């Protein structure tokens, strides 16, 4: 790395539940001995790839993701004229990202989801006729991959100087047996979850850009989970913002 690395930030955060409930099962311990509502420490660093217009690296526990952004540049495919810019997203896994080799099949869907989560936040009309490419590579998959990819990609877009309404932060919640909600599940928890809720939002504008739910949820549970996610998103965005600020102040010093 030729450029001076931006300062490393490792912070853990946890949403504050609005209604303090008594924990029904205190005997349950999470695999990495976190609290139910405690997220994994988030580490972000911008300018991770020199060749790209903007890039970011994110590490949430064992989940490690690198995203590079290229453009705005000429659309590769000779497509029809468009007075708004295009966003092209691609998510891929390294061969060694998972314990079992090969995870090709999933990526098309993840790419689609990443695109949907980001497109609402970007001012596409600021780069007409051109394309911005977002390439995300999951170096190691440790659970909750997509939200990490989304957060990291929005940071990379900001690093590339693409105009956005706000940073996009993503958080997911898993509902485990006995109706326990755990935030930011690791792979082990994800594989045994009864349901999951993934939410990406723009915290300053208070807008949800993407939301997916699987499994059976009652309204009360759903509302609790959404509140948790929204709160965690705003805290995550603060960390992301401070990472950008630090990188900028470092650049100004030089």
């Amino acid at each position, binding site marked *: 790395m030729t450029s001076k690395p931006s300062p490393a930030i490792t912070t853990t955060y946890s949403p504050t539940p609005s209604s303090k409930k008594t924990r029904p099962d205190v005997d349950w311990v999470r695999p990495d001995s976190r609290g139910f509502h405690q997220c994994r420490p988030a580490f972000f660093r911008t300018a991770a790839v020199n060749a790209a217009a903007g890039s970011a690296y994110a590490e949430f526990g064992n989940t490690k993701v690198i995203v590079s952004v290229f453009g705005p540049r000429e659309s590769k495919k000779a497509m029809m004229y468009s007075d708004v810019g295009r966003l092209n997203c691609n998510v891929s896994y390294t061969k060694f990202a998972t314990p079992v080799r090969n995870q090709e099949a999933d990526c098309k869907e993840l790419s689609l989801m990443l695109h949907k989560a980001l497109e609402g936040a970007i001012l596409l009309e600021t780069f007409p006729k051109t394309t911005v490419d977002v390439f995300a590579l999951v170096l190691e998959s440790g659970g909750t991959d997509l939200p990490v990819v989304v957060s990291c990609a929005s940071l990379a877009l900001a690093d590339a100087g693409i105009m956005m309404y706000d940073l996009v932060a993503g958080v997911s919640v898993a509902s485990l047996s006995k109706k326990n909600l755990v935030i930011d599940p690791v792979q082990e928890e994800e594989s045994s979850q009864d349901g999951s809720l993934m939410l990406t939002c723009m915290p300053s504008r208070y807008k949800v850009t993407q939301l997916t739910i699987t*499994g059976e949820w009652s309204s009360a549970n759903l509302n609790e989970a959404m509140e948790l996610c929204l709160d965690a998103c705003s805290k995550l965005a603060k960390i992301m913002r401070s990472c950008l600020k630090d990188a900028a102040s470092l650049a100004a010093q030089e």
Partner: protein
Amino acid sequence: MVGLSLGEKHFIKGGIDQNIRSDGRKRDSYRPIFVETGVIPQANGSARVRMGATEVIASVKAELGRPSALHPDKGKVAIFVDCSAVAEPTFEGRGGEELSAELSVALERCLLGGTSGAGAGIDLTSLIVAEGKICWDLYIDSLVISSDGNLLDALAAAIKAALANTAIPKVNISAAASGDEQPEVDISDEEFLQFDTSAVPVIITLTQVGRHYIVDATSEEESHMSSAVSISVNRKGHICGLTKRGGEGLDPSVVSDMISVAQHLSELLMSRLDSEISAAEAEGGDEEL
């Protein structure tokens, strides 16, 4: 998509604001739903669903297979959606693939529940024949024949009807094999098991146009959408899955509001669909007699 002039756009939007849409419906009313079952004789179950000019076919095929090592007590279900070029010229060649992928992922999310299998519309444990050895693999193939918006809701309704129409042959394990040996099976030609579809949810897509949201949008209305949320609700009124489509951000309170609206509407849709399915089934039964 649909090419609309500015005037047409204003007309549609204005109508929605005043709670009367171009075809005379209210914001929260559906187009008439027609259900026909048993349309594909080779399949174990099939149905055709028509909502206005949207028409889809779903078929269920059951094949004997081996359960996966991770879940020895569960059968497997795979959902595929194909968008025929017949419905829309842009689906020609590989043109429909992206939409097909989006729809099949959304359907899987809404019907198959969490990774542990809780809250699934289809009870996977009921597909097991011999634990760890033989299970039924259900292949749900659906095809979009005519598209005029609201494909996801129509597909979910068609799958529900097709599952209600599904008869899985009774399997007798003839020789009790020991250890790892694959037991011999005897598939009955006469005895069939009816599939329990009471837990299969319905999907309700709420499309946001301006400040309001509408159900069962036509493709003209869909071309207007800033965002749409597809919510699947089961008989108990619980949410079984949710997918947001369209890029624009939504206020969290709007999302919560949409969910409660969907829960309310699901009761009506569910009972309407149930009566349509049972009517279609009764009609199919008469023909056989």
